[in-house]
């Protein structure tokens, strides 16, 4: 069963065509990375998968069921984290986790929260207001929120942007470990090539709303005869009108 399948997905905003008919799917328990320059349509694609943006045309299938924008049921098995989304500042970290635990109606409420606190090392600032945390600490809390419902599908939009290398590495290691221990499929939009190389099973290269290349990170590097993904990225993005 494919957790996510996207067919000929298009999004036309008033004047910009942000996504121009893309096709892709994510395999069970795999991580798909969305790579591409600013404004190529990554966030728009994620927004459509979350039901935040209505596609102009095309189909989205979540677990082989066509996404239904009226019924929010599919959101029970998904979750999302990104630095441009934050949790209520006035609530403490613990209160926020409880609010979202309730919101997703999770069953083993207390154990799940305790486990996330333990795993993401949230103890030191558990009773601090979320607004008073550093961005690295906030990032960990957001990650905890995004895992609170044991999502089967996790969407991450630049999860480690604005983190120092050490904290960024901490988050990446944690995601790597989490992925090994849980049955989860991840869609990761990122500008961090090391992160993509390390976490992804498959890479989509986007440019101007289209997928211009795809493959395993290693295969892409070999195919384009470069040393690393960053050079592949630069080559593809600077190329003119190949597709």
């Amino acid at each position, binding site marked *: 069963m494919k957790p996510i399948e996207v067919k000929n997905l298009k*999004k036309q*905003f*008033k004047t910009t065509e*942000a996504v121009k008919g893309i096709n892709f799917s994510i395999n069970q328990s795999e991580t798909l990375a969305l790579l591409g320059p600013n404004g190529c349509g990554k*966030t*728009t694609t994620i*927004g459509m998968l*979350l*039901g*935040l*943006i*209505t596609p102009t045309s095309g189909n989205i299938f979540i677990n082989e069921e066509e996404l239904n*924008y009226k019924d*929010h*049921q599919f*959101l*029970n098995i*998904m*979750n*999302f984290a*990104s630095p*441009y*989304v*934050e*949790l*209520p*500042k*006035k*609530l403490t970290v613990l*209160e926020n986790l*409880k*609010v*979202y635990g*309730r*919101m*997703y*109606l999770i069953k083993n409420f207390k154990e799940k929260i305790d486990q996330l606190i333990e795993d993401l090392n949230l103890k030191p600032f558990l009773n601090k207001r979320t*607004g008073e945390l550093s961005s690295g600490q906030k990032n960990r809390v957001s990650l905890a*929120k995004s895992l609170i419902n044991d999502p089967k599908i996790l969407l991450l939009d630049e999860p480690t942007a604005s983190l120092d290398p050490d904290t960024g590495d901490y988050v990446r290691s944690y995601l790597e470990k989490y992925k090994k221990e849980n049955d989860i499929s991840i869609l990761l939009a990122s500008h961090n090539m090391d992160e993509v190389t390390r976490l992804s099973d498959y890479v989509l290269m986007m440019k101007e709303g289209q997928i211009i290349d795809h493959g395993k990170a290693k295969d892409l590097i070999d195919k384009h005869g470069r040393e690393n993904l960053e050079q592949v990225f630069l080559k593809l993005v600077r190329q003119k009108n190949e597709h």
Partner: protein
Amino acid sequence: MLRHFYLIRSSFPRIFDLIYWPTVQIILWGFVSKFFTMHSDYFNNVAGVILSAAILYDFLFRSSISYNMLFLEEIWSRNIINLFVSPLKISEIIMALTSSALIRTMIGLVPAAFIAIPLFGISIFELGVPLILLLFSLYLFGVTLGLLVTAGLVRFGPSFENVAWASLFFIAPLGCIYYPVEILPSWVQPIALGLPLAHIFEETRNILVNQTVSFTNIYYAIGLNLIYLTLAISIFYKSFASAKRNGTLVNIGE
């Protein structure tokens, strides 16, 4: 249902603010109406009219504003997307906003109403059982305005906030809060009567001045309210659909 409780709880602080402003307003209007009692025959036996109207109008104002504030707070805290990507339904968002706005409004209003009793010897509770119906009616209208403004916030972003304030002040003169409908120019009167407010405040005066209750006004108000509320709810749903088309939900906080 638990979700609602937690949503409500997440907007608990600033209780001081909630109590402070209604109280100040009541005290101000209390002195104004006391002054009128000393100098005007009309108000002599009905000193409470202005004050009661002020308290009731404040109730409306609060319920509507706190509705929008709740939503704006979620936008400012950049939390709104977290809510949209959770399995919360739009109807649940409406329910949560409606019930927490009620709680916030009550926190502000109840102390203010009690303060008015010893201070000015005026009690809105003199309105008796119909008071509940009048308050209910006002609350419905507050929710309606709140829904409309929130729909605007969803659709046009936080800059729509100014319209929120403007709309309330625009409606005030048409609401006939402190004076009978007949005072208005004749061509404005039908517009005013099309709003539930005129009926609500007309009845408030009727009860206080004539000591009789006419349920026609009350039923009129509730009927009109239900029409407007239904309209507001459907506009609220439409604003979500349109925000999803325009992609404004994703960067609503910016």
